[in-house]
């Protein structure tokens, strides 16, 4: 087995860019990642692309501008985990010695597909019954509240933390203000108990990474593990709230492979599409015991200057959520954090970082897919 290393990352800005071509967003991210990795584009010997809404052939349209013809290339779709699923395939391929240097790209342009809230997938029972994604998370939140007693203020504290962090992220879509708990709760109700400021915006953007073998560069990050799981049945037998089990399965595998415990993680980027999502995810990752995840944000544990900063970038709640690109944006943030290049967002301890992306929405499954990867600075 070859050791897989992260050589470089790049992203576009995140926001509404309907006037830009989707491949131009991708090129911006790829160019930065190639520069960051210190390679020539000609050294890339495979390309993996994560995207949910395409357009069809988006990978080839991106490839057209790169001058990397004829290499193996494929596109993966795993809902919100599409970008990190592409990354996972690249990591596995490098580990197995299949390729020496892989370009991973996540790209999404949603402003040209949706105006307003995303309409749910009409072929699915839940989508046909008009269950929007915030509604699915609201059902999760109501169940969680009924079981463990999470308060509206605890939910809002996640939004306050992440939106404050986002003020220091120049690439974030939302960085105008850091609301108070009261302002989060007073914002327009979307699906009870989730208010507008507890929901991430849909976005356009791209993220890229170069994954390769060990090459003797101190700046490269060691990919200790990447774990990917698909969904399992979520039905009348499920005691966990929707989504919990898929994250827990990926996390269990990731920590076992890396030989680490949750307490050893210095900084995390996790899937906070909605405030309850971060709480459930941190429990599934083992940062808190069942029913205690809601205390993490109010206690300061997950603050940027806390014991285990979570979403120092501002998370999806600030950055926005360009589905296929989101995992790559998380990966870029953890890379900058571990290298000490995160500027005003820099966390104090930054040797080991974790990225978690959970994509879901298919009815009756506990998620479409989840990826958890752990990276470490070389010592």
């Amino acid at each position: 087995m070859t050791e897989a290393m992260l050589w470089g990352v790049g992203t576009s800005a995140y926001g509404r860019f309907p006037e830009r071509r989707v491949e131009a967003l991708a090129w911006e991210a790829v160019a930065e990642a190639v520069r960051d990795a210190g390679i020539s584009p000609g050294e890339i010997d495979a390309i993996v692309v994560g995207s949910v809404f395409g357009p069809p052939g988006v990978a080839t349209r991106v490839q057209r501008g790169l001058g990397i013809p004829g290499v193996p290339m494929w596109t993966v779709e795993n809902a919100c985990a599409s970008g990190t699923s592409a990354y996972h395939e690249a990591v596995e391929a490098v580990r197995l010695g299949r390729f020496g240097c892989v370009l991973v790209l996540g790209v999404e342009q949603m402003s040209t597909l949706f105006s307003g809230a995303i309409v749910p997938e009409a072929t699915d029972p839940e989508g046909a019954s008009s269950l929007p994604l915030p509604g699915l998370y609201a059902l999760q939140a109501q169940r969680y509240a009924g079981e463990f007693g999470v308060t509206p203020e605890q939910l809002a504290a996640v939004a306050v933390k992440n939106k404050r962090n986002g003020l220091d992220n120049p690439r974030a879509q939302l960085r105008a203000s850091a609301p108070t708990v009261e302002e989060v709760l007073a914002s327009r109700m979307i699906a009870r108990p989730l208010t507008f400021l507890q929901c991430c915006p849909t976005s356009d953007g791209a993220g890229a990474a170069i994954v390769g073998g060990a090459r003797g560069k101190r700046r490269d990050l060691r990919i200790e593990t990447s774990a990917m799981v698909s969904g399992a049945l979520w039905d009348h037998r499920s005691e966990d709230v929707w989504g919990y089990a898929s994250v827990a399965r990926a996390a269990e595998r990731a920590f076992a492979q890396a030989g680490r415990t949750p307490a050893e993680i210095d900084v995390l980027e996790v899937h906070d599409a909605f405030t309850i999502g971060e709480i459930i995810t941190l429990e599934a990752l083992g940062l808190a015991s069942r029913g205690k995840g809601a205390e993490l944000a109010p206690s300061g544990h997950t603050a940027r200057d806390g014991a285990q900063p979570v979403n120092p970038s501002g998370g999806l709640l600030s950055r926005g959520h360009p589905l296929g690109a989101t995992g790559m944006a998380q990966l870029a943030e953890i890379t900058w954090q571990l290298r000490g290049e995160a500027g005003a967002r820099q966390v104090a301890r930054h040797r080991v970082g974790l990225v978690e992306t959970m994509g879901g929405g298919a009815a009756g499954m506990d998620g479409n897919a989840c990826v958890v990867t752990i990276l470490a600075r070389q010592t």
Partner: protein
Amino acid sequence: MAELGVGRPTKRRAGSAVGGLPVADSRPVFAGDAVLGTRCSACRYPSSQRDLPWCPACYAPMVAERFATTGPVWSATVVDIHVGTRKPPFGLAYVDLDDGPRVLVHLAEPAVLGLGSRVRITGTDDGDLVATEVRS
């Protein structure tokens, strides 16, 4: 020229409810005194899906089944935004049918019912199951 990406119809396979093309309906069917679905002939796993290739729990054949129209609420919410043709506020709940699967229902009254509240499927609205709280 209109601003790019503004005011367009949503177009990602949105179904006829929002002006797209009609798609096959995968929702549970209400038959007046039962919710129709399938059940595993070996392990009794219930599903509201009628076209499964085999039991997703044990791979044995599935057969047609009629489920009770009553059950406890697993979780409920009220949605305060427009979704498709649904105008806010509207109540949604996951209900574990007493002898059957977990199904998503619309609530006759838009209220956040507590966990375990008893409801009965009382009809359909545009193909969606509609449930009413059963007060004892």
